[in-house]
């Protein structure tokens, strides 16, 4: 409740505020997104972001950044002669 009021006041006076409500949330948020959270931590965070708008937004952004890194970046093809030369070198070691 107090948090909501603080948000509103900050918004009214144009004060920049953090895109999350507390540091613990950010830490948990990364743990959840990185698959490192315990089940209880994950459940609690998901319950929290249902009610906390800044954390919900932050969660969505962090998730989408992680996804574009994973799926949009093109991978370079390995030069076939590299594979060939590695195998040749290894086979040549006595």
């Amino acid at each position: 409740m107090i948090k909501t009021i603080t948000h509103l006041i900050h918004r009214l006076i144009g004060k920049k505020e953090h895109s999350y409500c507390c540091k613990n949330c950010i830490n948990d948020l990364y743990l959840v997104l990185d698959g490192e959270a315990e089940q209880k931590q994950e459940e609690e965070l998901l319950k929290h972001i249902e009610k906390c708008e800044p954390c919900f937004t932050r969660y969505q952004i962090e998730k989408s950044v992680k996804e574009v890194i994973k799926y949009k970046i093109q991978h370079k093809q390995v030069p076939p002669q590299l594979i060939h030369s590695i195998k040749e070198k290894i086979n040549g070691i006595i």
Partner: protein
Amino acid sequence: MEENKKKSPYKNKAEKDALFEKEFMHLITPLYNFAYRLTFNEDDANDLVQETYLKAYRFFDSYEKGTNAKAWLFRILKNSFINEYRKNVKQPGKVDYQEVESYYNSDDIDEPITQDLRVDSVKDLIGDEVANALNSLDVDFRTIIILCDLEEFTYEEIAKILDIPIGTVRSRLHRARNILKEKLREYARNMGYNG
């Protein structure tokens, strides 16, 4: 650590080579891409990957089956990279306690104001923009994003690959992501999505 002077477990070299190839050669694409993103140079990437495989072969007997082959190779490659390309830059394996402390003791380390980075504008970025943003990060930050987000290693694996404590993995990831978001915001802004 432990004296392991057992006889070679392979019948002959052909058998050893076949096992080695089966265990490690399929990982060459992520390794090559990691090397390229560290050096931005195809020849250097070739050299790094080749050296990694030759070292891995030399230490193949000490490699325990069932340990994560990919993490093992990534660690060798990262060490080779430090030894050859960053000799004078930073001591490998040295823990930056200040980095961890400043993270855990302050309430908001360089938290950027990213409210105006919107999910839609992130999703509209094209692959090249994302790659450029990643490539523009300092090598330590770039590396940790690659290991975590691109290659999906666990924190524990990343800690082993980089020889740093898990606390440092987490704080460095946090910083790297904040900088990355700022870069992505610039691209998004240039596209006109964010005013």
